[in-house]
């Protein structure tokens, strides 16, 4: 009679698509923290390559991270440029706004990525609040 597998071992086995989900969440975070642009391109490539064939868990994480990355680009780059263009650099109030805006938005986006990565590591789906829907 075959020996039944250890239940804790089953739980530790990665789910289908979990590796890809972790990779997507990691690239989202690397894009924000270490290699902006390059990591996004890698995420885009991963999305293009696996979006049709990946297991549902991976597909969900790929879609969410790509959408959140696009929103991050809008929120951090375009919005910041707009503030600077409209107000110029030579006012204290502009600096107060820009630094507070950049810090809070960037930290929030990173925190969402941490939650997403923790979910991916646990083999669970994660929907980014607000920034999880792809741009129109």
């Amino acid at each position: 009679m075959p020996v039944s597998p250890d239940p804790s071992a089953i739980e530790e086995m990665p789910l289908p698509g979990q590796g890809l989900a972790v990779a997507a969440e990691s690239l989202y975070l690397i894009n924000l923290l270490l290699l902006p642009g390059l990591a996004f391109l890698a995420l885009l490539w991963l999305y293009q390559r696996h979006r049709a064939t990946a297991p549902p868990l991976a597909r969900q994480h790929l879609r969410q991270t790509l959408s959140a990355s696009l929103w991050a680009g809008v929120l951090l780059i375009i919005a910041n440029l707009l503030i600077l263009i409209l107000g110029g650099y030579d006012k204290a109030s502009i600096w107060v706004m820009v630094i507070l805006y950049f810090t809070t938005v960037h930290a929030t986006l990173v925190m969402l990525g941490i939650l997403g990565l923790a979910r991916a590591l646990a083999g669970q789906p994660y929907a980014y609040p607000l920034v999880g829907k792809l741009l129109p």
Partner: protein
Amino acid sequence: MQLQYKSQAVAKPYFIAAIALFAGQILFGLILGLQYVIGDFLFPAIPFNVARMVHTNLLIVWLLFGFMGAAYYLVPEETETELHSPLLAHVLFWVFLIAGVLTVAGYLAVPYATLAELTGNELLETMGREFLEQPLPTKLGIVVVALAFLYNIGMTLLKGRKTAITLILLMGLIGLAVLFLFAFYNPSNLVKDKYFWWWVVHLWVEGVWELILGAILGFVLLKITGVDREVIEKWLYVIITLTLVTGIIGTGHHYYWIGPPGYWQWWGSVFSALEPIPFFALTIFCFNMVNRRRRQHPNKAATLWALGTGVMAFLGAGVWGFLHTLAPVNYYTHGTQITAAHGHMAFYGAYVMVVLTMISYAMPILRGREVNPERSQVLEMWSFWLMTVSMVFITLFLTAAGILQVWLQRIIPNPQPFMAVQDQLAMFYWMRWLAGVVFFAGLAVYLYSFFAKDKPEAIEAGEAHPSVT
């Protein structure tokens, strides 16, 4: 519910004292906050420098009470044996409490210079340095308490089971005691003085205290999630390695402008830029463990505090630390309200919250039940949100004040003097004070939650004590 080991009960007075001193710290924080905008508020009874000293010293003392209480609670359970000497733990509690209260009373009762004279500072001059203002007898008392405490914990560990959690905790506690010895080294050369002063201050909060934080959080997560010990231990090893690798040389971010060689600007910038990484890992650790939990622990409040610790420690210590840690940025921001913003959120997120996590988990058991009644937990979770959200606002207002301060004092072509700039920051100081009042309200709700009982109809409906699933 019974304690697993009777000697764990010694943790209870430590936790009660910690909470009482916490309340005192916040009260003095509110006094200070008002003194920023109403300069002579409570003067001359409580001058600004005294209020500040009491605010920061109470923080350190109550956190130490919390760490000791946490150690006395978790070590018997981890080592699977009774504490070596519960009596010694009780004696040390009273020694430490009396020394702490007398010290604060001394700060408030007599001028600081008189206190130095009365307490024999001329025998070994250790007073007068920020955070290490304690008179010589208090400092000696801290050493005696720390050594006897380490003896008690060490002997318990020797006779019992050794786990990664207890070993990391012990490493942190030994580091805490050893590094405090630099409080006795006070050279007349100002550069050397500040250089080694940071060995206590920085290497405590960005070094060994993080080990204590990791051990306490690991213990609570182990209990409330039921995740394999092996998994938790692996995470802890990674986190403490990252902490020590980045934090020790990261001390260099304090050496930029105080006289040590210029290479510290590189070493300090590079290593302290890496310091958010252990906090990043800590946050993933907390959420990952809760996501992988094998049981739904009924203590929802403790779970919330544990998750909050990860998030707020990352934001306060990691993000707000990084904000002003690179030498070229720090050249402008050094010693401004940006530092105060970072200090407030980092201390709250990393150390206040981890002690409250432990209290939230252990206190109900110390009071003879597995978890608090539903209403009490709801109130505690309200207090979590009130204190945490108000701390976020305190940090944001102080950051705004700091940016404006840098601009007016260090950027514009005709920089203004310090006090002239302070006047222009008043709006942010008022908003910070209001956020502080909300924090105090959160603390009041927290204190009340210990006495809240479920309404009779809820008890009849059986909602009061949700069972473990």
